[in-house]
């Protein structure tokens, strides 16, 4: 059965497989994005009143190398990568079923909120709190899934609506559940802020297993390992199970999969649920690291939207998400290096250019394939003598036949 699942869509061409250039295309997009982003820095320098062209060089050097200058900075890459890796998995998994989950921000927000509640108010250990976050995200993700499967409402709209609904729902819940009156959640001095988790329940914080000492960083925890583990699980789920096959079939052609006996409604609902669960887990990893101040007036979480970039850059492949998540984690970690020279938004500018170019991956892949094709053609032209030889053989064969007659 598994062999059948492995059957990937690789059209045959000239007897040779058409190569899949997604990785190369992403790489080209990244390089082009970085170069264009840096070019913009120079342009900005040229426009500004006191242009000093040494500054962009210093900033770019800091941007590219700071993360590797010390252990603390190095770990920050993975610290930023862990939650966006998970939201990337969430968005990517939904993409596989042909669904666009913009709602990762809301799912992460509400999941993370319940994770914090579980750790502080219910006194659960960190892994149980993460599971709570995941379950809440799963339930929140079921809503757009149900609306899509039963009423055929575009999931883009429902997830956008649910993002904002979750934002206000979390605020409402914040003030009305979780023992807000007994001030266990709330900081007594700053009532808009939630107490740090370790004050109430040290076991509720994601452990670091000695990483904090090694990397000399308060940000160090095992969140990244959780994220990578989940990515591997998702890879197996997508590529080695019947359910994963159904998800991909739904994404490629909903009607055909229905015809083939796949319950597409059930698949869509479950896919959105799982995507929500992954995003919820991301929210849990984000807040239970206990390095981020949970405030009640939180806007929508940026990790949800970064997840879209991560998934797009990895063309939704779970293992690719590990790489692209780490890369965008690197961009986020390097943002601090720009401080003092440029606004932090330069990172977003670079990211947007990368995404824009990665949208061309199809075209880049086609161009690369065309180059290959041309090469093959040239090879064939060079080897044109071969068919003639065969013909000659054939004719001589027939002659022989004639002779024997």
């Amino acid at each position: 059965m598994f062999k059948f699942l492995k059957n990937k869509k690789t059209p045959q061409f000239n007897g040779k497989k058409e190569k899949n250039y997604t990785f190369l295309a992403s790489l080209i997009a990244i390089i082009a994005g970085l170069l264009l982003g840096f070019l913009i820095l120079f342009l900005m320098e040229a426009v500004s009143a006191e242009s000093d062209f040494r500054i962009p060089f210093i900033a770019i050097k800091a941007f590219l190398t700071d993360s590797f200058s010390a252990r603390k900075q190095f770990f920050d890459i993975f610290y930023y990568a862990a939650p966006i890796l998970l939201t990337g998995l969430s968005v990517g998994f939904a993409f596989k079923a042909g669904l666009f989950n913009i709602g990762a921000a809301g799912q992460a927000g509400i999941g993370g909120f319940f994770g914090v509640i579980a750790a502080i108010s219910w006194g659960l250990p960190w892994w149980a709190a993460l599971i709570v976050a995941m379950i809440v995200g799963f339930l929140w993700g079921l809503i757009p899934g149900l609306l899509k499967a039963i009423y055929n409402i575009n999931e883009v709209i429902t997830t956008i609506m649910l993002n904002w609904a979750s934002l206000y729902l979390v605020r409402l819940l914040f003030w009305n559940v979780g023992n807000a009156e007994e001030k266990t959640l709330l900081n007594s001095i700053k009532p808009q802020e939630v107490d740090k988790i370790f004050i109430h329940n040290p076991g509720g914080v994601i452990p670091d297993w000695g990483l904090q000492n090694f990397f000399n960083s308060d940000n160090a925890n095992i969140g990244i390992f959780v994220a990578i583990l989940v990515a591997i699980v998702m890879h197996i789920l997508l590529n080695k199970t019947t359910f994963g096959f159904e998800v991909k079939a739904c994404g490629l052609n909903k009607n055909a999969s229905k015809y083939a006996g796949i319950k597409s409604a059930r698949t869509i609902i479950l896919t959105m649920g799982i995507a929500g669960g992954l995003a919820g887990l991301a929210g849990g990893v984000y807040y239970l690291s206990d390095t981020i101040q949970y405030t009640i007036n939180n806007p929508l979480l940026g990790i949800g939207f970064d997840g879209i970039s991560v998934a797009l850059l990895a063309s939704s492949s779970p293992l690719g998400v590990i790489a692209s998540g780490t890369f965008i984690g690197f961009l986020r970690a390097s943002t601090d290096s720009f401080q003092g020279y440029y606004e932090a938004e330069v990172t977003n500018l670079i990211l947007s250019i990368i995404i824009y170019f990665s949208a061309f991956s199809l075209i880049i892949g086609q161009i690369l394939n065309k180059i290959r094709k041309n090469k093959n053609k040239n090879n064939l032209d060079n080897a044109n003598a071969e068919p003639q030889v065969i013909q000659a053989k054939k004719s001589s064969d027939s002659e022989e036949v004639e002779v024997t007659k």
Partner: protein
Amino acid sequence: MDIIAIIISNTIVFAIPLLLGALAGMFSERSGVINIALEGIMIIGSLFAAVFLSTLVGDTEWAINHPQMAVFVSILVSGVAGGLFSLLLAYASIKLKANQVISGTALNIFAPAFAILFAYSIYGTTSDISIPRFARITPALLGWNVSEWPSWIYTLVFKGLFLTTPVAIILLVVSFVVLYKTKFGLRLRACGEHPSAADSVGVKVIRMRYIGVAISGVLAGIGGFAFSLVNGLTHNPDVLGYGFLALAVMIFGNWKPFRILFAALFFSFFKTIAVVSSTLDFFPTFGLSYVENLYFILPYVITLLVLVFTSKQSRAPKAEGIPYDPGKR
């Protein structure tokens, strides 16, 4: 009476950017291109109009003598900026056949970052740009004597009245006429429904889609400017998700101009209720603290419910989101 006037005028005020954004989405999707970049285009339109109005012409004599003329030119500026910016989406998704959602997302990330960097490189300190107060339409400007009007009528008419409001209404009517009463509109819709059929009778699908996206960019750019006007006369590098909400309003309005108007007003009404709920006593609290958050959830949940009840009639343009490939005809 005053409260009702405030609610009605606020409803209209916040419906205008939604209406423009949703009309923008409609033109793009009716031509077959999903325009998820509305949010980004709105920011760009708002940015250039604000820079134009507050920095380039803000203190000139011409602007002070002809304030509404200056606002009108700013509207044009926002439209042109939005239209040009949307061409990035058009080029990627029509010419290069890129995934429309991906390229749209890229523009959405790009726009706020660009707006912030641009504003910083001009003003040095802040990314918010305040728009001159003369942009507001006042009774004095119209030469009306309103001292004898009841206060609620004054509130109803002049609270948050900007040139964008009549312009938006004109654009709505024009959109309807263009889409349903002209050859161009018929062709545009054909490209969104069945591009190969349109192509077979000689409609240039690629060109129509470029035009559809460009119109979309112009309208969304103006919508962004309208948003920054009603949002306390300030340009922020952020339109608070209005671009995405406009997409929802467009679907709610079933890709039809006057239904979109209704949907925008409907959504905006519940949003206004949420805003005023905290200041008024007669909204029940259900024994909850900070109950205004409950009212803030309402517009989203009610819109979802309406979508559920109207889902049977909902009809998206058939070919939206699919790059046109003449080879597949």
